[in-house]
């Protein structure tokens, strides 16, 4: 059986098993086992992929299979992965498993919560393994819809407002996207029997430039909304602030990556000419949001808002790098997606742990936590250092690759925007160190904090699951970077560079 199919079957079976589970203990056990298996399967896929590549298989897509689904419209269920999707699948598996551990103590409606959470993850896995635009869109929606329930039911604060806002804005993005995808379908010429939804076939056949000019911006913005493209990012601070911990982790960690992945895999890959023509405009937007998000984060006092704005900055860098339209920068973009996914999930996990103990997320209300919560604080410092691009952690590798790639453009426009984007490394240091200095260091400012419970085993497991890959990528990035770089060949061919 195709291993990619397995990646969809495991979560589906987990959901089925969850439906029959009775109480909380059972539900979380089923979830951990299911997602643990998924974790193993994802790593198995990674090794299988690397083995295939090592044995000389240079196909664009590996592990492909195709099932006809609705022949009148030529909708198929096409599976296949390259280095980029494998990397993102592994990321998703890690973050999902960590999220399940972090939700170990979920009180209300645990079973339903885990079902929704895993349904969301299934959508993400599905999105990364399919090569058919229609199926991709289907999985995309499958990932977005449970978010509404997860925030609306298990959220905190103004959760109805946030859930509604997030869902409506993402649905608005989907509307653009649907038009863009249909436009691609009706302009596709690659297939022998009429139009096609298959990515590789569309790419091979090409889309007329006039059509590209209409549908590129629609597709890019449609995916961009999920990737926190300025000015469509405002769902993110409110959404994260209201979402329960594991949902924030999954959302910022992997769901936002769907946006970047879509921009790369669909918008730029299928419409390279329009991308080259219009890149400048989106570089303005994304380059701006890199700085803007970082400055916005300085002003925030709520930890989740800080992280949300930080994500606007970091995800802005992902789209910025994709728009550089060269191999190095795109490689950096994918690395940044993985790095940001890991560290932002770590951030949200830690914020959740802190909130459970101190019942506040306001930075100024906490102080001296390093003394009372050494494990959580040390992890927070590591996450912070990863976020500000410390060498030896994953963020550095990604950012440097992006900057070197962006520097390959020698014209004044690109240079100026690149240097502006580079300057964000300073602003990032400011907001990260402000939080670390105020919240973790200094004297303990609340006598009640002296008795805060230390991190439990499931919290430690969740945090370590995320820290280890951050450090591993940061110290030895070559294999990952090469795996991704090789998979960028097709898009570089498309761009005619």
């Amino acid at each position, binding site marked *: 059986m195709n291993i990619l199919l397995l990646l969809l079957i495991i979560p589906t079976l987990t959901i089925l098993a969850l439906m029959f589970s009775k109480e909380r203990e059972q539900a979380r056990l089923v979830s951990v086992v299911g997602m643990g298996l998924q974790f193993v399967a994802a790593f198995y896929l990674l090794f299988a992929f690397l083995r295939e590549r090592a044995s000389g298989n240079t196909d664009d897509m590996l592990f492909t299979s195709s099932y006809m689904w609705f022949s009148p419209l030529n909708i198929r269920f096409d599976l296949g992965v390259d280095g980029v999707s494998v990397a993102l699948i592994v990321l998703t598996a890690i973050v999902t498993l960590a999220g399940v551990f972090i939700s170990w103590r979920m009180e209300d409606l645990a079973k339903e919560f885990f079902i929704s959470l895993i349904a969301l993850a299934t959508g993400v896995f599905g999105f990364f393994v399919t090569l058919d635009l229609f199926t991709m869109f289907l999985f995309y929606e499958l990932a977005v819809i449970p978010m509404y329930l997860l925030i609306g039911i298990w959220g905190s604060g103004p959760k109805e407002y946030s859930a509604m806002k997030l869902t409506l804005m993402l649905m608005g993005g989907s509307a653009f996207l649907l038009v863009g995808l249909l436009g691609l379908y009706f302009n596709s010429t690659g297939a022998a029997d009429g139009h096609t939804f298959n990515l590789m076939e569309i790419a091979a056949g090409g889309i007329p430039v006039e059509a590209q000019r209409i549908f590129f911006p629609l597709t890019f913005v449609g995916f961009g909304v999920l990737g926190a493209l300025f000015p469509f990012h405002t769902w993110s601070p409110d959404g994260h602030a209201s979402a329960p911990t594991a949902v924030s982790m999954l959302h910022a960690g992997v769901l936002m990556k769907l946006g970047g992945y879509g921009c790369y895999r669909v918008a730029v890959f299928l419409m390279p000419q329009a991308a080259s023509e219009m890149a400048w405009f989106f570089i303005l937007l994304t380059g701006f949001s890199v700085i803007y998000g970082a400055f916005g984060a300085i002003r925030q006092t709520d930890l989740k808002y800080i992280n949300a704005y930080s994500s606007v900055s970091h995800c802005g860098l992902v789209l910025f790098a994709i728009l550089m339209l060269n191999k190095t920068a795109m490689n950096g973009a994918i690395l940044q997606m993985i790095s940001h996914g890991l560290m932002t999930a770590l951030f949200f996990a830690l914020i959740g742990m802190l909130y459970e103990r101190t019942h506040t997320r306001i930075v100024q209300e906490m102080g001296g936590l390093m003394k009372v919560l050494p494990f959580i604080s040390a992890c927070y410092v590591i996450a912070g250092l990863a976020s500000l691009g410390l060498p030896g952690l994953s963020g550095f590798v990604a950012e440097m690759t992006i900057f070197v790639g962006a520097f390959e453009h020698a014209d004044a426009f690109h240079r100026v925007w690149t240097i502006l984007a580079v300057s964000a490394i300073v602003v990032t240091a400011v907001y990260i160190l402000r939080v670390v200095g105020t919240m973790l260091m200094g004297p303990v400012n609340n006598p009640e904090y002296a008795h805060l419970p230390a991190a439990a085993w499931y919290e430690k497991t969740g945090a370590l699951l995320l820290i280890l890959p951050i450090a591993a990528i940061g110290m*030895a990035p070559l294999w990952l970077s090469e795996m991704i770089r090789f998979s960028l060949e097709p898009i570089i061919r498309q761009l005619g560079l």
Partner: protein
Amino acid sequence: MEGYSYTIWIVLLPFLVFLLTGLSSMYIRPRLAGLIGTGGILITLLLSLLTAAQYFSTAPPESGWPTLIPFDATWLKFNDTLAVHMGILLDPISVMMLVVISVVSSMVHIYSLGYMKGEAGFARYYAFLSLFSFSMYGLVLATNLFQIYFFWELVGVSSYLLIGFYYDRPSAVAAAKKAFIVTRFADFGFLVGILLLSWYSGTFDFVMLNNPDGAAIAGAASATFMGASVLTWALVLIFMGGAGKSAMFPLHIWLPDAMEGPTPVSALIHAATMVVAGVYLVARLFPVYHLSDGPALDIVAWTGAITALFAAVIALTQDDIKRVLAYSTMSQIGYMMLALGVSGYGAEEGLGYTASMFHLFTHAMFKALLFLGAGAVIHAVHSNVMGEMGGLRRYLPITHGAFLVACLAIAGIPPFAGFFSKDEILAAALHHNPAIYGIALLVAGMTALYMFRLYFRVFWGEDRQYHHTPHEAPAVMWAPLILLAVLSAVCGFIPFGQYVTADRLPAGSHLDITIALTASGISVAGILAAMALYRKPSDRPAQIAESLSGLYRLAHRKFYIDEIYLAVTKNVLFKGIAWPAAWFDRHVVDGSMNGIAWVTTRVARAIKGIQSGQVQQYALSFVMGAVALAALFIYWLKR
């Protein structure tokens, strides 16, 4: 390279020690962590000395001292031309730095066993020291610009962690943050410089970049941007990184505050090793700076000269013993920078380069000694402020003796170490630019004055009534002092020109007698002035301060540079950009999203009455519509 494969352990061992002590810091006995850390660093000391002996004992070939790469691995490939390597590069300056780092770091590790005894977080302290040593070794052994940047950031974070070691003190937290952010800002320039230089030259590699024929940098040298070659821009930006790390004016503001860290940390990081990384960086790329044929080296020279003078003036007025030493460090690093800036490439021309490296070496020894001595003083009297000290020579005889040697060394009194290196710097400056020579000479006199001001106020002056009788530090603390004192006394006799020159060819060291006499004369004058003013308690210093009130206050308040920075960051960056950005986001961007939603609901509310579900109403609308259509139709037919 045959026979140097063990050098990899100089870097790896501290890293392993860091992992071991860092991960187990909550579980193992603190003392054990200290011993593991110290044991690890002593092994690297042996390996470093072995490397130096092995490297310098073989006579250099015709072409001069060789560059050896005993280890090299690809760490990351950016594209087909640019790849990052992690490796080990041995040449005279990196081997010299190995000796400096391993000696000072070992002394600090041993000293800290006594100084930090009983502190909470003792194991964490040793873990961070190991992290620092690892990063610093990695930095000086770097084979390429990117590797140096990698470890550059890591020494920065080690410095952050160690300055903020007493993390429950708000002042330490603020100082750590300031140090990181100011150097980060400088590193922004450094990074852009690296990106520019590597894009034009297609390599990060030092061997390629430093090729004396200049082939690698030809592209950057020929392209121009705003009136200067791109090469010059890149080198100035790279120097910006170096200036940040080495606390050159105006990026120096973090160094005095960094004294919030434990004193042995100040000795290691903020006196002997990390802060000279900027000097090392310029020296590492010296052939490129020399070939750039632009103002880059002049900028280095003048930045160094201005910092040397500026810091010396401030050092004269400070009352905190560690801050005096911090400004002194700035001033001495300024000396090293100016020496590099005035240097040429060839035999006689290259004197500045040799002098700079020589001074880096001697300074590391005596400044580490000064800080460790100051630590012993602070340990004894539990205060940093000179006003609370005096007459300590009777209580701390060993510290006093060692401290005096260091003071004589830094003041440049023959035959102590600083005399030789300072003489070379002055000779190089005179040869190149009389104005810089004048500044350097003035600074030499001021150095003697402020150092002996410190010395007399702490060890002489009036005998205080101490709460607890100050007592000499334990042996683990004074043994390193003695060793460093011996080094400070004798290491000036090393014939540095034989080993370290810009073009790698051995050159003779010679003493310029005129300059030597002038400089020593000025130093002696400085010492005598300090003796007259501070040996016995008197109100003469206060009178002088009074008579120079404006200037004195200016210097005492460090020329208000901190206040200027604060005003800029607070008013421009926070109030001017960050706050408006956050407001704009919530009110304009998000406001328009909410506005769309609001309009949609309003429209819906306005028209929802139409679909009421009442059949009568629908029927009425249907009939009215039909009538209206019929009327329209008839009217249209009639026309």
